[in-house]
């Protein structure tokens, strides 16, 4: 990708980011009635505290000024104070973020690990029973409602078979020094293999719940991409050179077939962030998604706003990176 094309693509994201911040800003105006009154409904806040919150939210200012303040604060990472936690919103969010990222990455790695071999197999055995079975399984996977799938897994593997914990991220008594915030990393750094295993067992079901529907979707992408590559001249030419079939498939074909897969995987990682809210709720996973759901019921609007903004910005960034990756990986496009 040339530098100018990169800058152009980067500039295209600016109006989108601006639009997103407008929508997120306007979200709070959708509440029926006075947001401060709603937020404080359950607590015994004094009128002074209410006035303070009103001021913090900038509700005393006219709309356009409020937006500028919001935008300025958002850029500097200041999303106000979480009334509920009595701490800055950004602090609460950052504390929960590693758990969410760990789950999302685990789910995506799992999805790729399932999707790539199955997609390749379906493409190589095109129009056979295997291809048809995988295509049916994939349709099944994309039709699964995530929250229900998670419950089924709990019912089967935790309740009935007792193989995995019902929820949470760690056993209650686990104490490991937090370095990266990723438990799988921190437990290894601490040299605690038992804790690592425990963390892995907690991660397994949520990651499967989140990852399997994504695997279904990615497998389709792998299959169609691989099937197209397999009809290419360069695969025929590679076979004519007398190199092994495995090398033709796994090196010549796969390297090209994976280019669109990387793009879709990057975009889907963004979608997984959304799916996280459901999965974290089902499994009691202490990540950002569950925090948002909890905050909704606590009417902690600033936190919900901040989280939605963060998710959307991450999503747009991943889309941008997907574009960059596509051009970077594709030698034909590179100039």
């Amino acid at each position: 990708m040339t530098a100018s094309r990169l800058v152009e693509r980067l500039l295209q994201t600016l109006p989108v980011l601006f639009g997103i911040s407008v929508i997120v800003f306007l979200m709070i105006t959708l509440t029926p009635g006075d947001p401060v009154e709603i937020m404080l409904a359950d607590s015994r806040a004094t009128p002074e505290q209410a006035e303070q919150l009103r001021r913090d939210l900038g509700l005393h200012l006219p709309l356009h000024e409020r937006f500028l303040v919001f935008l300025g604060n958002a850029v500097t990472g200041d999303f106000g104070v979480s009334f509920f936690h009595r701490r800055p919103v950004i602090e609460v969010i950052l504390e929960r973020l590693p758990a969410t990222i760990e789950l999302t990455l685990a789910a995506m790695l799992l999805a790729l690990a399932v999707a790539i071999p199955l997609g390749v197999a379906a493409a190589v055995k095109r129009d056979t029973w295997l291809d048809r079975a995988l295509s049916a399984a994939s349709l099944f996977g994309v039709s699964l409602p995530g929250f229900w799938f998670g419950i089924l897994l709990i019912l089967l593997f935790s309740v009935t078979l007792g193989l995995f914990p019902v929820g949470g991220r760690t056993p209650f008594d686990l104490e490991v020094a937090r370095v990266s915030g990723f438990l799988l990393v921190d437990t290894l750094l601490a040299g605690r293999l038992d804790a690592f295993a425990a963390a892995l067992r907690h991660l397994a079901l949520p990651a499967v719940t989140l990852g399997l529907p994504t695997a279904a979707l990615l497998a389709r992408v792998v299959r169609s991409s691989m099937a197209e590559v397999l009809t290419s001249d360069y695969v025929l030419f590679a076979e004519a050179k007398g190199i092994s079939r495995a090398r033709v498939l796994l090196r010549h074909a796969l390297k090209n077939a994976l280019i669109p897969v990387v793009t879709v995987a990057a975009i889907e990682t963004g979608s997984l962030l959304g799916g996280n809210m459901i999965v974290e709720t089902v499994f009691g996973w202490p990540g950002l998604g569950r925090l948002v759901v909890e905050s909704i019921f606590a009417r902690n609007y600033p936190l919900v706003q901040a989280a939605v903004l963060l998710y959307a910005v991450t999503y747009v960034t991943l889309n941008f990176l997907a574009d960059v990756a596509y051009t970077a990986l594709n030698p034909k496009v590179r100039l």
Partner: protein
Amino acid sequence: MSALLEVRGLRTVFPTRRGPVAAADGVDLTIAAGEALGVVGESGSGKSVTFLSVLGLVRPPGRVVAGEIRFDGRDLRRLPRAELRALRGRQMALAMQDALSALNPAFTIGQQLCETLVAHGLARTEAEARPQAAALLDKVGIPSAAQRLDDYPHQFSGGMRQRAMIAIALAGRPRLLVADEPTTALDVTLRAQVLDLLDDLRRQDGLALALITHDLAVVAERCARVMVMYAGQVVESGPTAEVIVAPRHPYTRGLLESLPRLEDPDRPLHPIPGQVPDLARVDAGCRFRNRCPLAVPDCAKPVPLAEAGVGRLSRCIRAAEVA
């Protein structure tokens, strides 16, 4: 003259929605070491399928259902898969029409050359193969070859790419090269360069060459023998000089009349009227009879490929009358 490649009764079938189609139907051919055979026909005549069958590279669901493919005395159809693969690239190789699509865009020219050398045991590692690879690029006339090994195909010019592809095909020092329209995508100067290169290899190394093309002019210039295919069958074969002067099949004559001639540019061109028959619906009779000016009722009976002069064959019952 002992044949390096001898094909008898080759039949390659592709299932289609309208029933099985024999893209190559009873093909016989021979090529000797150091010989260049021109294979001529329209697209869909079965010339590429014939040679992909020889190389064992027919894509499923297509498959070779009958015939004998003898290479250096061995029947390739009876060879285990692994042994056939060991022959590919080492004993017989393929060069394709469009190097841009034949070369893998994701690997450098050097990687694609070296992997062939390693696969056939000509080098132990890809690093060890690099000097050989550079020598190969040099041999096909690519300047500062050693430096260009790390280039990707798209960084080469069209003519260089074509030569690089030929270098890759020849990396295993094969005895037979199937060149499928190797010059169609090139301009006139480059075409001559590539054909000269193939000529040199044939003379110096005794390379046997099957030059698949729809360009009779190229065949006339470069190949001692020619084989004309139509609708999956060989319709005529023989010494190129004789076939061009006095064709023994109406289709060959039609092809010749549809070509412009340098020495007589004002001669009117006669495209062959009518259309190639649907291969899913052909009968045992002559497949050209619906377009043939010489067709008679007997043409609906099976027509064998028969002798029509010394070293010449024709699949026409009125071969002698074709002028």
